[in-house]
């Protein structure tokens, strides 16, 4: 089954649209009416977007959803999805792929905050940049992303992979401040530069191919290791947190 959703330009483009029902799972059940919220009003999807459904599906994995138009303020697309595929042609709003357990989301533009928050499985590919809290957790939560994979070709904002407890994240660009804060598991690879990385980590592994600026001063130096043909400085920590995580970085500086 192919679903094509084209969001129309609306009168006030700044009002966010919450569209947690846009998942392959929702299209599997025919009797489902897809509704969205525009501010404090609720509408059927047809009110804000044109959409067409072609073909049939026997399982969620047969469903491909293509989303077009201005979706930079459309939130929660793919939330709780368990299979199938979503492709977003432009930018996407906050909380895309929250809690997803399977399937694939591909974003050709950039993503706003909380991309793949608390995801358990599946795959997210973002060709542009991602906002703050990419692959992280929720406020006050103890575990962020738990499984699956996230790949961002651009850069990410602050607090990327905060509380991450499992899964794999690959960031081709730079990160903002406090990447991998409170890290508890999983593997994060940053090909660019990062700031105050792995603060308070307790477990997990992080590779920084660029420079880790303002290194947290409570990591224990373990020497150098060769990984992937590159020489990395190996750190263990965060000692302040009785942590046992591994941080590998090519360059690092302290704020002295």
């Amino acid at each position, binding site marked *: 089954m192919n679903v094509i959703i084209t969001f129309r330009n609306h009168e006030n483009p700044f009002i966010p649209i919450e569209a947690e029902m846009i998942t392959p799972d929702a299209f599997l059940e025919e009797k489902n009416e897809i509704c969205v919220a525009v*501010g404090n009003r609720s509408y059927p999807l047809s009110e804000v977007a044109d959409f067409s459904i072609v073909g049939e599906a026997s399982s969620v994995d047969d469903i491909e959803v293509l989303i077009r138009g201005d979706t930079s303020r459309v939130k929660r697309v793919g939330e709780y999805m368990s299979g199938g595929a979503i492709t977003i042609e432009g930018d996407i709003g906050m909380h895309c792929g929250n809690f997803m357990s399977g399937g694939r989301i591909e974003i050709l533009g950039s993503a706003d905050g909380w991309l793949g928050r608390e995801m358990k499985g599946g795959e997210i590919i973002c060709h542009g940049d991602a906002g703050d809290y990419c692959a992280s957790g929720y*406020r006050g939560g103890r575990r962020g992303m738990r499984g699956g994979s996230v790949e961002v070709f651009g850069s990410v904002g602050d607090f990327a992979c905060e509380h991450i407890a499992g899964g794999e994240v690959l960031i081709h660009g730079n990160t903002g401040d406090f990447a991998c804060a409170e890290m508890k598991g999983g593997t994060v690879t940053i090909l660019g530069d990062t700031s*105050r990385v792995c*603060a*308070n980590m307790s477990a997990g592994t992080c590779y920084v191919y660029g420079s880790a600026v303002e290194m947290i*001063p*409570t990591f224990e130096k373990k020497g150098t290791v060769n990984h992937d043909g590159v020489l990395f400085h190996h750190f263990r920590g965060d000692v*302040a947190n009785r942590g046992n995580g591994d941080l590998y970085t090519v360059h690092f500086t302290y*704020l002295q």
Partner: protein
Amino acid sequence: MDIKDVPCPFCGCLCDDVKIQIEDNRITGVENCCTLGNAKFLSKSRLQHPIMRKDGKWVEVSYEEAIDETARILSDAVRPLLYGWSGTVGEAQVVGVHLAEEIGALIDSTTSVCHNPSILAIQEVGHPGCTLGQVKNRADLVIYWGCNPIEAHPRHMSRYTTYADGYFIDNTATDRKVIVVDIRRSDGAKVADEFIQVKPGGDYLVLSALRAMVRGKSDVVPDSVAGVKKVQLQRVADLMMKAKFGAVFFGLGVTMSRGKYKNVRNAIELVSELNRKTKFTISAMRGHFNVYGFNEVLTWMAGYPFAVDFSRGIAFYNPGETSVIDLLEKKEPDACLVVASDPGAHFPKSTIEHIAAIPTVQIDPCVNATTALCQVQIPVAITGIESAGTAYRMDGVPIRMKKVLETDFPTDQEILERIVTRIREMRADG
């Protein structure tokens, strides 16, 4: 006539030992109060009538017309924002939360721009806190981190810490040590036994280093951390561990500098670590006299302390998404009600421009910077002077605010109740 033990409706210290002299229903004298509180008690300027912009000019209108217009603006809005709340009492805040739920609004308080990160940190790791009375009577080490009580909470040191007589402290001048951590030598720093000057944005790193030292892992710490020498850090860590009862107070230098809630979390975890060796507590230096009260009210009504979005009929909380600055920066709200605060004087320019671009109503006794951004302003009685109610001190102790002057002005609560009633009537009429 003298009235004793009046709580001061200015800052989070909520000093309740103020003496007020009244002649002919006017305050003629204030005793025991600091300059900030004095100014509020003795202030004379206020707005006398509701005002509304018509054809680009301010005109005086009746309360009924102002309330009608407010109700119309709020019920037409798709993403209304109700902001402020910290300068009024719990009884009015309750009506505000009902209003937010009724119209599917976003509701946020000044917490969002002060101790928002403290709350986020507490939600992650808890709050080893205590009341100010405990600090006054027991603390032999007081740490002010990223705050300057002499300017912002002028009676904090004399009522609760450095200069206050304590039941278990023989000589408060010699037995109580004070440490100040700041990016500059403030007036507060001048009275400290130890002053730590941190490079701006370096608090997190210093806190991590101290945690490692308290754990006995000094060897991993480099010779200098964010401008602070390792020897000084070790001296401070030893002072902390030797204290019988340490109390940390932190301000916006910790919460609103780079790293935000991670700084606060690290401070809390330092205090937790110290509690393995001795007794330590940590408390936020809250600003408005009842900013803590709004957190209490919204938590018991909606489950979250600030930044709640009722637009889907349930309470959704996600600072960064549902908090006032982020919302205004993204130009989301299409109407705004400001109650008991002055965002016009404190917010970033881009957010103020958005407040001015949408229909905004203010409920406040005085003309202030926000007035210039509004379509309607409704003057009210001054809470804590002309109307009574419940406020929460910075340590979470509720204190009954007094009414010391008679007034014809309606209270915040009355105006909000009339707005809710009017909105319900409009909705019943379709």
